[in-house]
């Protein structure tokens, strides 16, 4: 089928947990709204003809690249043709692909452009600007595309997969984490129209799904993060198969380390790591998420079976002898056992709901888990393991 999507390239603001409001460029799928970070998630099915129209409201030309798709067509009013790098009259490259001009440009090219491609392969992909990408991509003109396999059926476990039945990619819940960096000097230079030297690029914030920790742990669609709609908390029950899709939208490579268990990388850049029956998937505890690349991984956490009946082999010291909630808050339940809560010192707020376990997922380039130097922040979120049967319909992407 044909999926029609309209995006507006516009500006807006993102907020950081330390109280900064940072000017961004980005996409929205609603006319008249401000840009969101990252752009709207696009979920389609293998075989779909995807038609994405970009309306440009920015003060310069913009465009979209679709890495991992092939045969992408562009139509800026003259009919669909192969999307190609664009050169000006004197042969200078002006965009990596066909672009939408900006309103008020005397050149008077159309300010909207339509891209058309057939989603040939299931997987995780980015869409991102191909015009002044060294500026426009860090400014926020990127988003993710998930392509479901043609036989995808969430009601049938063997067909609730990342890459199709019998590819070994079944999952119970799935999460998408798009990572990037923010150099506030770039953002403010673009806002004020002043010069910026790309050689001085120096990120002070790092984002997961457009948010800096601890905002990463908040749910989707929080009112106070109106332009950063996507949370990045991973929630699971013991033994479930969890699919995590990493996408590197920034300029840097980030080593993302998940506490709790190894993951198995089953695909890179939206291509299953299989040649016929030969399986090339691999286990890691840290995945170097390369810029412009995607990594799909599946893991589960089963624990070691501790319970009141099978107690831990050490004695928990008195609370007075422990540090709990050094920051004034904690995610700890107060109990070593899943599904149980224990004492938390007076004055410490626990965000633990029902004795779930929390494990950190973070960049191991540790300055990236700060907000401009202040820990905790940046490229960090949590994996929450909830007691069996307690999680409802979370970990779905639509």
């Amino acid at each position, binding site marked *: 089928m044909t999926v029609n999507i309209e995006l507006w390239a516009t500006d807006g603001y993102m907020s950081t947990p330390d109280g900064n409001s940072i000017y961004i460029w980005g996409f929205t799928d609603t006319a008249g709204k401000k840009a969101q970070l990252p752009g709207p998630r696009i979920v389609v099915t293998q075989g779909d003809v995807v038609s994405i129209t970009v309306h440009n409201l920015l003060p310069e030309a913009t465009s979209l*690249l*679709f*890495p*991992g*798709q*092939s*045969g*992408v067509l562009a139509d800026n009013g003259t009919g669909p043709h*192969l*999307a*190609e*790098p664009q050169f000006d009259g004197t*042969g*200078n*490259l002006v965009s*990596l*692909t066909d672009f939408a001009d900006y309103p008020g440009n005397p050149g008077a090219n159309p300010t909207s452009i339509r891209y058309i491609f057939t989603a040939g392969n299931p997987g995780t992909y980015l869409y991102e600007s*191909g015009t*002044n*990408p*060294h*500026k426009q*991509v*860090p400014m926020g003109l990127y988003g993710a595309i998930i392509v479901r396999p043609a036989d995808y059926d969430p009601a049938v476990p063997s067909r609730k997969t990342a890459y199709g039945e019998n590819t070994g990619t079944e999952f119970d819940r799935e999460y998408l984490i798009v990572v990037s960096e923010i150099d506030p000097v770039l953002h403010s230079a673009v806002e004020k129209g002043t010069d910026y*030297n*790309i*050689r001085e*690029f120096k990120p002070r914030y790092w984002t997961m799904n457009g948010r800096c920790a601890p905002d990463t742990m908040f749910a989707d669609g929080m009112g106070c993060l109106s332009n950063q709609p996507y949370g990045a908390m991973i929630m699971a029950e013991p033994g479930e198969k969890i699919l995590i899709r990493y996408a590197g939208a920034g*300029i*840097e*490579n980030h080593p993302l380390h998940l506490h709790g268990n190894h993951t198995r990388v089953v695909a*890179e*850049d*939206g*291509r299953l*790591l299989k*040649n*016929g029956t*030969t399986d*090339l998937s691999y286990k890691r505890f840290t995945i*170097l998420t*390369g*810029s*412009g*690349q995607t990594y799909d991984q599946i893991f589960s956490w089963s624990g070691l079976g501790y319970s009141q009946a099978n107690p831990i082999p050490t004695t928990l010291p008195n609370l007075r002898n422990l540090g709990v909630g050094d920051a004034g808050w904690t995610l700890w339940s107060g109990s070593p056992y899943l599904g149980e809560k224990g004492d938390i010192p007076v004055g410490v707020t626990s965000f633990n709901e029902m004795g779930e376990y929390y494990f950190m997922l973070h960049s191991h380039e540790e300055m990236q888990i700060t907000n401009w130097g202040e820990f905790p922040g940046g490229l960090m979120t949590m994996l929450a393991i909830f007691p069996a049967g307690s999680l409802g319909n979370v970990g779905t992407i639509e």
Partner: protein
Amino acid sequence: MTVNYNLWAKTGSISLPGAGPVPFWGFAPATEGPARLPGPLLEVPQGENVEISLTNDLASGISLVFPGQDFVPQPVKNPAGTFVSYNPETASGGTLTYSLTVSRPGIFLYESGTAPEKQIQMGLYGAMVVRPPGFDPGNPATWTAYGSGSGTDFDIEKIMVLSEVDTAMHQALASGDEPAGYKPDYFLINGRSFPDTLNPDDSGPQPYGAKVTAAPGQRVLLRIINAGFMNHNIRLQDIDARVVAGDSRPLITPVLDKSYLKHTLTIGSGQSYDILFTAPTPGKYVLYDRNLNCCVNGNNFPGGIMTLVEVP
């Protein structure tokens, strides 16, 4: 059999878009004529003994090493026991012959083993391609990267040597000053920054073009080797490319096919990858560094590590 090469290390000057002449140190294939960036491409059949006679017209001692090759380095140490160079030095004004047997096919660097943080940055590196048995330059039917059965048959081959230039460091070292750290402002394929990468091969100090031209259906082999100090994330836009070798180890063997598809590939310093694709429908396809701040010349986009695959 022995293959002999003569190289002259000398000072020279490269031109980078938007910068004045930038001094560099490089290898020249002849006593007259300019030093090249990268050094002359050496093409050798597997199993040969290679002898490289290096004449040093630079002011300081240099040496040659062959990373990834089967050779026993002979490091030189000072009386305190610390490294002076990773292989015997050719003193300023002197000539020394380096030899090695090339025991496996692939794409390799040759580079200076003396103060490499300066000398490699200044340009003392080049690529060597080792041909598998049966490779006949005159017979396209024999063209493979790693021999028959390795899935690396190709019609068009393009070697791409990646690197960076810190022009301030070049100026400082050329005038005998100590550089103030490493902060590259130019990013190169085959010694050139975009759009110069698109120009054809020539006989100047940056003789190697980096544009790929292939007819639809032709098998194109990109051999990308990173002589720079940074990692680079090479993206081939809108073309499905298969990684068929890493560090000159073919991924396809008779027992196992470990090759994989990738649109953006991180290449660490010193590493190489061979990438194979079939030229698609006619059009222009861009190849660039997804580390987008390496797609600039100085502060200007477009530039740097960027080129085109043109399918006419």
